């Protein structure tokens, strides 16, 4: 029982520290949002990738950066209706 509790505590601390750590009730929306946000922040964080996209879009890097940041707010559309 102590092991279980400990595992639970560890999981909780992981969830607090690392955004996106899943749990048993992770919804599809949460999961896909996380993936999309991880990807978007990776695009922003890797300078060559940000430049590559900016060239394709024909705009300054800063504009692309804002565009991607804006997309991180709600990357996969509206959250689903809460189901009880």
């Amino acid at each position: 029982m102590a092991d279980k509790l400990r595992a639970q505590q560890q999981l909780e601390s992981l969830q607090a520290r690392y955004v996106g750590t899943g749990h048993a009730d992770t919804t599809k929306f949460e999961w896909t949002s996380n993936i999309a946000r991880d990807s978007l922040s990776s695009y922003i964080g890797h300078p060559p990738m940000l430049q590559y996209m900016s060239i394709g879009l024909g705009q300054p890097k800063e504009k692309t950066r804002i565009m991607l940041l804006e997309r991180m707010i709600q990357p996969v559309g509206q959250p689903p209706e809460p189901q009880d």
Partner: protein
Amino acid sequence: MTSFSNMALYALTVQQPSATQQAISGDFTGTNKQQILTANGSRLAILEVSRRHKGFKEIFSQHVFGIIRHIEKFRLAGATKDLIAITTDSGRMVTYEYLPDEQKLKTLHYETFGKSGIRRVIPGEYLAVDPKGRAIMVASIEKNKLVYILTRSGQTDISISSPLEAHKPQTLVYYLIGLDVGYDNPVFAALELDFSQSDQDSSGQAYNEVEKELVYYELDLGLNHVVRKWSETVDRTSNMLFRVPGGPDMPSGVLCCGEDNISYRRIYNNASEVQRLAIPRREGATEDPNRKRIIVAGTVYTLKGGEFFYLLQTDDGDAFKVTFDAPGGDVNNIKIKYFDTLPIASSICLLKAGFVYCACESGDRILYELESLGEETDDPVFESSQFPADPLAPYDPPFFRPRPLTNLTAVEKIASMNPIMDMEVANLTMEDAPQIHTVCGTGARSTFRTTRNALDVLDLIESQLPAQATSVWTTKLTAEDEYDTLIVLSLLSATLVLKIGEDVDEATNAGFITDTTTLGVQQFGEYGVIQIHSRGVRHIHGVQFPNNDAAGEHGELTDWHTPPHRTIVACASNNRQVAIALSSGEIYYFECDSDGGLAKADEEISLDCPVNCLAIPDVPEGSIRAFFMAVGCGDQTCRVFNLSPDMSGEILRSVSLLALSAQPSDISISYMYDKSPRGHSQYLHVGLRSGIYIRSNLDEMTGEAYSTRRRFLGPSPVRFTRVIAAGEPAILAITSRPWLSYTDPRTGTFATTPLNYTPFDSAWSFESAQFKGVICIRGDGLRIFALDSIADNTTHETIPLKYTPRKLVGFHEQQVYYVVESDNNTMDPKTIDLLRDQLNNGAKNEDGDLVMNGDVANGHHPSDELPPVEFGHPKAPGRWASCIQVIDPINEKAVVNTVELERNQCAVSAALVAFESRSDEVFLAVGVATDLSFTPTYTYKSGSIHLYKVLDDGRRLEFYHETELSAPPLALLAFKGKLVAGVGRDLVLFDCGMKSVLRKAQAVNCAATRIVDLKTQGSRLIASDQQHSITYVVHKDLIHPNRLIPFVEDTVARWTTCTDMVDYDTVVGGDKFGNLWMVRCPSKVSEASDETEDGQHLIQDRAFLAGAPNRLDLVMHYFANDIPVSIQKTSLIAGGEKVIFWAGLQGTLGALIPFASRRSFKMFQQLELALRTEDKPISGRDHLAFRSYYIPVKSVIDGDLIERFLVVSRDKKESIVARMEGNWDLAEVEEQIWNMRGLYAF
């Protein structure tokens, strides 16, 4: 059991990336001068800018082996120099001090705070420092913020606290700065957006109402914690903050920039105190008056006496000067005025010396000089009192007219290939070595560049000689002379003596024998000059030109004649020593006696083989003679003799011998700078008739030659001249073209680079009052040039292009290149003309507003004719401007033809095809997309292939026909006299018809997403998918209908950007994440694919996991931190082996060199292993982890790390080598490292 992969490569960077991630100015050397610290790719570099150098000088550069994300400087109170803080993907907070004497970065702090890699919640994306250097804040894009407190302990040490957290979950950070608050508690300001509500609200209302906040974090130094002090809602579009100077009588606070919004804000301010400016918009026929600008870059500059201003750049490139009206620190008003238009920059640095450094996002980086601070120009000034603080409230948008540079003048450019869009290595002009052709840049700043491995020289004088000359010398008249006075030319059977004065005239009565061929000329003793000719040596005493004209007078003439029936075949001399070799094999040696005469030594050397060449170095400082003489003998040896008495008092004894692979053609001994403890060493240079150049160290005590480097320079015998290049001694090696052998000023290692100059026969150094350089002759032409800069070993020729280049296609037979270009969100020329006509005809513009029409009515000329190179093309959302350009890089060095595309089409691919069915007539096929859009996803209206007939030696294109396709063909390739295209997921084979291209075969759903690149060998095609690596396809043409059968594909989803076939089974490629990889088809699968003529069994093969029946094996993998855009198997230098050469988006040029022997591979492997621990990357990133960023590195040795070995201290080098297995010594290891660069790349 150890197992070896059967392939191993050495990854070398040939040209460093030039994309600037960030640049900041600061005093990093502590000399009270400003330098620029730049982060380019994975390199940190410090540039010095000065009027004395007339521009830049790179004083330091180091690879950090990490992805640099942000750099910042800080200075502790009372300190005299700025320190550096960087964040990389190492998960560590690292700070440095630059030590200018040792030219290295000393790591001050090395604090681990999180996982490595670039992650959403690991801080590092943002870095801000307190201007007083008391605290550093690092933040991630989402949630995490850490604050480190810096305190000074003792005189020099700076201690760093453990991190304080200021996390806020579900919050995005847009920007972060440290506020200037004087000596109050440090405050950081962040632009944040909390999305927690919008993640919960299914109605979407919360999403529409999310607010951006400007949050102030205060670090309480007394309580040692961080508090979220205050926040206020700001404009939703805000994206950037700038610090406002604080302290006594200064306003403090931030400039918060957003779309059409620059506001001044301060902690605890009321809404009424906010001062806001709208960003002025361009006027003109092609400008949409409703388009709002954002600020993309900028800098603050504080003048002496506390005045300050900002230079802020918009997304058009226009820079504005923002000034404050803030008496006593209360901001009453802020003003904005157009300053000048610069290329869009990632960073702008304003230096105290009056320079503006613009680290452009694309193209050359530019240094400007400030002519004025923009106060005199009559551009309109807008004030914050004109605009409401709320950007949503109505206001009259401000307008201005862009104009050419007024306040700035461009001083210098650093050539920068960033971004490279496509590359091809080809030898169009049939030179010794191929040229690198790249298309670089974006928008109107795009260029076509031809890059050669060569040193640029400064051509000074070119003149005609009366007759053909074979050799040239210059000489002084006395030992004290500073400059050369005479030029001696050896003609076919005569000698011509020229006097250098105001003009260069033929000298009369200089004492030279003029009716013979001269072999050597030397200023000898105090006042003499000697002339060595085939029959003897003439010693001319006291040559003078008393009237400073060409009429000379001289003292006594002493002639020494050769013994009968013998002639002089070779000679060598310095100021005090002369050696001559006779046709009979004897070598006579002379020294300067006490009264300046020639005294022949009793000893002589008698060799039983002919002597080809002799060399004596200059007399070393403080000695009376040089110690050694080198003799190149006909028996393929080079012997060294001593000239100073040895222990038994004898001279001319053979002290060492160097066996050569061919007959020597010339020898030289010189002192050159190097990394030895003394700073310079004596070097022996041997040139062979086979064109090989050998350089050895020549021990000054024993005369032993060691540490030998060999290199093939060209197909004709090598001859040498000692010259001065950029103030350092160097050797000019003359073969089929001239080369310079010198010490690379950056790395201190030996380098040989060809000169970017016409070939010549003979050369000598030349020093006059006006310039120092090299005089050279070819036939009857005489030229003088100077070697001013040896820092950059490549030269560029640049041809401007119109739009962003997408694909480069070479027509090698006709020496032309075709470039397809397209620009997104850009107005096409037809619309531009239409709009201008409308304006000129006085027709009312669609959204015409008062200001604009008013100006036109006032007779203002539309300023739209401003060159797009500086002002960019007019923007038009969703529109494409695209063209095909024909470039002649050889003769005209210009664009010779341009074909514009219309109807919102954009060219996406191109290929040159000789259709077999049209008797090999050559066509240019261009893949075109209509209404292409990338956001939110890849969409298009239609795709087509345009065929253009290639006419007039490839210089003109005639539209032939257009074929509509279901999707844009992103890849085209000439294949077996036909055209193969990747149309969406399908691979289709086309032949040329009368009205369209005709489909001959196709492989439906060949790739998983869309085919972006095609390569071929024989019947095999390699189709690259945008997301899912590559597929091998075999073409079966002996059955009807033809079949294209995919038979093997990859196991990993690589987002392929470029590929090339290394051999029939192996493909090397690059992907969008910055990896280089090589995959190979299993031999059985490869054989089976070509077995049958109908491919029936391939079709019958069972699909494996919903793909092709077989899978590829990974051979090599390497993370390069730059997106490869083009890759090619080619040789780079004359006589060099083939290497894999790649070009990266950020301007990197790199080579992957195959190892020739397992022994050397094992050596490099051990060396790499040792360097990973002995010379840890300064970013704090683990080297192995960095090169294995996505996939573990495989079969590649990192040459950039290996070359760090050359710059580590000697003890460390020796300790590393001592620990290596395989009996290596230091010299051998260094030679191996040098060879990898010298023999394969440059």
